[in-house]
């Protein structure tokens, strides 16, 4: 290139991660910069790839259940619910009503813990240190309920195919109720800290806009889609596990920017509390396990079942060949698909916003890489 000197090149390629505090794990983003403007990105993922889908083919249906907890490890209960529902669909059975109610309570509790972790780390990325302490303090209360219920805090393995393994413990209702009462003022407190804070607002408003149509194009789901004004939630659209009995709203926002995603998630936590309050009042009596043999052996066939995980649509596509091991399990991870939209969101923005946008996508690398 004789006619250009190195001074003409004003593009800078910057590597971010895989060990960067604000990439939430081991995400590596290669940024192409023009000054401070991002002109392109390339995500390098797979550092946490454990081959979950391959493991599934070598385990029995029951044995694979603990592994799904380890994909989205901050929302392990949701993962387990999706997996159990998928196998139940293949077996053509349904969990008894009591099990369904408990499942709903725990899944909503899990949604809160997941959102709290998101809020804390997201705020930390933006530079607000205080929320992370409060979030973890309150998340602890929810984790205690998990621990009391099933004996583990994070990778819970709470549900089994056909229902529940554990009956609720004494005092479960009171603890959940106490959590609900405690939690709503706390959400107000977080909002007091952040919603009007000028730094917070200026850092988030208008950053990383993704319109509803773009979301659909990329397959982005969950709070990101709802913040773009699409009122779509699998809990309402295709209710599972008895969600149709509960009265709740789907929070949406209009602009599809980072700030809107924040408000949507805050509202979602309130709605989760609302669902839990309704569910805890009427846990039906009865068995907690449907009739499932000790050996789970679904008839040959396939099913795709998806649930609304805290991050978006979490789907399981399971192919059975009438043996005790799945022939193929495919997980449709919401984080993986959502992360794909990162390029569209950061392009044209400033480099400082990349951190905010990765935070707002709420990805968990365990699920991106599986």
């Amino acid at each position, binding site marked *: 290139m004789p006619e250009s000197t190195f001074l003409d090149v004003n593009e800078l390629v910057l590597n971010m991660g895989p060990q960067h505090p604000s990439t939430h794990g081991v995400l590596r983003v290669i940024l192409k910069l023009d000054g401070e403007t991002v002109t392109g990105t390339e995500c390098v993922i797979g550092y946490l790839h454990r081959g979950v889908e*391959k493991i599934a083919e070598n385990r029995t249906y029951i044995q694979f259940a603990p592994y799904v907890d380890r994909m989205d490890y901050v929302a392990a209960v949701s993962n387990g619910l999706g997996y159990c529902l998928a196998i139940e669909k293949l077996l*053509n059975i349904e969990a008894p009503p009591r099990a369904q109610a408990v499942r709903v309570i725990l899944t909503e509790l899990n949604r809160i813990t997941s959102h709290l972790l998101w809020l804390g780390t997201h705020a930390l990325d933006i530079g607000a240190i205080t929320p992370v302490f409060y979030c973890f303090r309150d998340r602890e209360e929810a984790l205690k309920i998990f621990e009391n219920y099933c004996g583990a805090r994070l990778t819970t393995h709470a549900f089994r195919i056909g229902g529940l393994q554990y009956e609720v413990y004494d005092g479960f209702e009171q603890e959940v109720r106490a959590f609900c009462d405690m939690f709503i003022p706390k959400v107000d407190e977080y909002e007091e800290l952040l919603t009007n804070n000028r730094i917070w607002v200026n850092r988030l408003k208008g950053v990383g806009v993704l319109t509803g149509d773009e979301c*659909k194009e990329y397959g982005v789901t969950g709070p990101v889609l709802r913040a773009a004004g699409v009122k779509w939630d699998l809990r309402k659209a295709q209710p599972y596990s008895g969600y149709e009995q509960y009265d709740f709203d789907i929070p949406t926002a209009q602009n599809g920017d980072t700030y809107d995603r924040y408000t949507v998630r805050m509202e979602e936590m309130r709605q989760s509390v609302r669902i839990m309050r309704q569910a805890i009042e009427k846990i039906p009596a009865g068995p907690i396990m449907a009739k499932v043999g*000790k*050996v789970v052996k679904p008839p040959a066939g396939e*099913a795709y079942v998806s649930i609304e995980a805290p991050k978006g649509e979490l789907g399981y596509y399971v192919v059975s060949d*009438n043996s*005790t091991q799945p022939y193929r399990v495919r997980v449709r991870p919401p984080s*993986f698909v959502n992360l794909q939209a990162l390029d569209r969101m950061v392009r044209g923005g400033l480099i400082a916003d990349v951190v905010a946008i990765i935070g707002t996508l709420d990805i968990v690398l365990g699920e991106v890489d599986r």
Partner: protein
Amino acid sequence: MADEEIPASAAPPAGAPPKVAAPKPAAAAAAGAHAPPKPPPAMAATPWDGPLTGSLKQAFGDQISQYSTYLGQNFVVANAEALDSILDFLKLEADFDYLVDITAVDYPKAEKRFELVYILYSFASNERLRIKIHVADGVKAPSAVHVHVGANWLEREVFDMFGVEFEGHPNMRRILLPEEWTGFPLRKEYSILKQDDRWVKENLGIESGH
């Protein structure tokens, strides 16, 4: 694992002799974890007929060979060449504007061993539809990227795990595994303990990972 390993009977009372046969040595259990793949028995799907099938039949004729439903989930089996136009048709005419997932299933015994599954969803009618195409090993499948942008990474993952290449994909590279990796882990002949020993040795400096 064989069925008789975990008896279906209820737990015997304490002290009673166990009902299972003598335990297998642990080595057998580890080796038994990888049973040779056998052709799956057919699934009991029933034919599917609805308003959508009519328009699909009209538009594509014998390009779509099967309309089925199983457990209330509809799927069609199509020719690989027609995939593009089917996706396009479904997106524009039938509002299937959300490509949920692309994945593959490996049937090594079949003539065209890879079954690619496209899961679509329509926001307007709250409906799901699966499209399946079959491609043989080494044959390129058509890419869906110019119909659904979101297909990009999903196709890369299928390539990464199964080695199915997509014609017309802008960036057909591995996504989860390192780029120099050889072998496609989700193929049935790839055993669970297998890995690319050369890559592991070169990059991690250890003989093997297990």
